[in-house]
């Protein structure tokens, strides 16, 4: 017993260290006064110097703003297309080409990003020559490319949510006189809303940290944040990148903690209500 307790503790420590030491060291160094990233300035640290510098860096902030816009737009587009694909695949029964559509929508999940990037670039160039759109590459081309690969993830999420709930709910709505469109908007959509939210968040994240595809399909003046960071790091890691990364970690951590708390509270409320219903319910 004692031995197993020791082993368990060691595994936990090792796992946590593996996951979080790199992030922790980055956070610590973001408060380092020294210009050299890897040399700890004992005398003047900690300092918020790099955070102040970061706020004055219009180029990085501009890139961050572009990233947010691209991520939000492509998440919306991916959710709309992904939901349509998911609904068609789970609710329209067997139809000609169903297996093909199913395989094709999920293919981008396993496609190397670099191939998606090259393919997208070629398509955009060819389109521009053929119909004059898109003229040049920029935010819109990045957004379209991101929709293409994020949609696959949303489709999978929506599909599994739809498969998880009883399709007699939709049949019941039809039976009560609702036309198929009404059923979709009043029954199906509210029920898969949690999947849409998580699909949106996932698509946002995928777009937010994609650098490979964006590299291919971006144009001048439309560098996303990861591209900007990447190009700066190539010239040597500067401490304000550490500060930026720390802020991003902070935002993510707060989001995760809040959503966990919310979900736990909801679950407790629900099980309490179910218990109550069971106790007072019998006639």
């Amino acid at each position, binding site marked *: 017993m004692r031995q197993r307790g020791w082993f368990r503790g060691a595994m936990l420590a090792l796992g946590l260290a593996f996951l979080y030491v790199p992030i922790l060291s980055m956070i610590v160094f973001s408060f380092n006064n020294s210009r050299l990233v890897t040399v700890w300035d004992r005398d003047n640290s900690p300092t918020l110097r790099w955070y102040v510098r970061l706020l004055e860096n219009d180029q990085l902030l501009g890139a961050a703003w572009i990233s947010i816009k691209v991520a939000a737009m492509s998440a919306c587009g991916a959710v709309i297309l992904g939901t349509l694909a998911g609904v068609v695949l789970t609710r329209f029964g067997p139809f000609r080409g169903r297996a093909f559509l199913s395989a094709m929508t999920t293919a981008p999940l396993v496609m190397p990003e670099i191939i998606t990037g090259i393919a997208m670039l070629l398509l955009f160039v060819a389109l521009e020559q053929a119909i004059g759109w898109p003229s040049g590459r920029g935010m819109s081309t990045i957004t379209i490319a991101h929709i293409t690969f994020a949609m696959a993830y949303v489709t999978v999420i929506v599909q599994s949510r739809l498969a998880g709930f009883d399709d007699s709910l939709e049949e019941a709505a039809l*039976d009560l006189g609702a036309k198929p469109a009404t059923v979709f908007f009043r029954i199906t959509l509210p029920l898969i809303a949690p999947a849409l939210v998580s699909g949106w968040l996932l698509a946002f994240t995928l777009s937010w940290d994609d650098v490979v595809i964006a590299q291919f399909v971006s144009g001048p003046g439309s560098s996303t944040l990861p591209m900007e960071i990447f190009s700066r790091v190539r010239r040597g890691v500067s401490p304000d990148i550490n500060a930026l990364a720390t802020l991003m970690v902070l935002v993510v951590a707060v989001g995760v903690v809040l959503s966990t708390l919310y979900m736990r509270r909801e679950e407790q409320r629900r099980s309490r209500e179910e218990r109550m219903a069971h106790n007072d*319910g019998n006639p």
Partner: protein
Amino acid sequence: MAERVVDRHNEYLRIEGVSKRFGDFVAVDNVSLSIYKGEIFCLLGGSGCGKTTLLRMLAGFETPSSGRILIDGQDMAGIPPYERPVNMMFQSYALFPHMTVMQNVAFGLEQEGIDKNDIRRRVDDMLGIVKLGDFAKRKPHQLSGGQRQRVALARALVKKPKLLLLDEPLGALDKKLREHTQFELINLQEQLGVTFVVVTHDQEEAMTLASRIGVMNKGQIVQVGTPTDIYEFPNSRFVADFIGSVNMFEGKLIEDEPAHVRIGCPELETTVFVSHGISAPPEAPVTVAIRPEKIEMSRSAPVSGENHVTGVVKEIAYMGDMSIYLVRLSSGRLVRVTIPNVERHDERIVWDETVHLSWHPSSPVVLIQ
């Protein structure tokens, strides 16, 4: 097992030679049925017998491969579920989890484009009828199983359908609640005058609810009749065996008179005298079916020598209100006998006692198929 009168002049639902095939599998095989206004008709059968598929075709969720369904004289071919004058209560109840009880019940009326105040009034009335007025603001997960069942019922009935389809309406309730709900369901049906078509695999449920039962097997309707017809006069080995328990003995027709028959059963080591005629070719192999509660068991031999065998008690199962005895005849055949426990302290027959079994000549049913 109240027999209710069926008005046979008022046909409401007519199923004409309906079949449903899924690939090579025939789920429903050439079913024809007439269901009359105001009755509770039960489709009874084991799982996979096609009863649910038949119900789903009535609701419009499946299209018949062949045949016609007419509701109130109107052919239902090509009419989608949302335009049919029928409503369905689902086995899982299919309550919308994101809506309150009131919103669930109002949903169907909203689709008809009725005035808001009218909807409110009708929903309130309906919730009153199913005794859920105090629960209008609750969500489905805040209700017990019995309450959910009543919401599902209210939601279907508020549309004032002429025909209500119920898929295993009591399947998800525990035993105590089932009995209670069965009678509530019958009261409600009589109160509102709706025609019910109920699908169930539970013969007890079918017996108590139904004015008529259609027994299904392998996609076909095997027998249609009142609960008494089905129980007392099954028309086949399948029905006799499926409804209740029964002792069946293979035999051969020895004497065939208009008013009685005599059948030789090797397993019984005697001939069975039946006080009604049957229509079967002479020497045809037949089956004699005797219900366990129609066999008398005693320590002393009965006066009449006919329809009488002896055996040894091998098993006794005490059920409280009655006991089930398994008696082994000298042929090795086990016979099932049920005896009501009328008195508390009588001298009950015990294991390994030799007993006499006898039955009235009107009790056996002779089955040809």
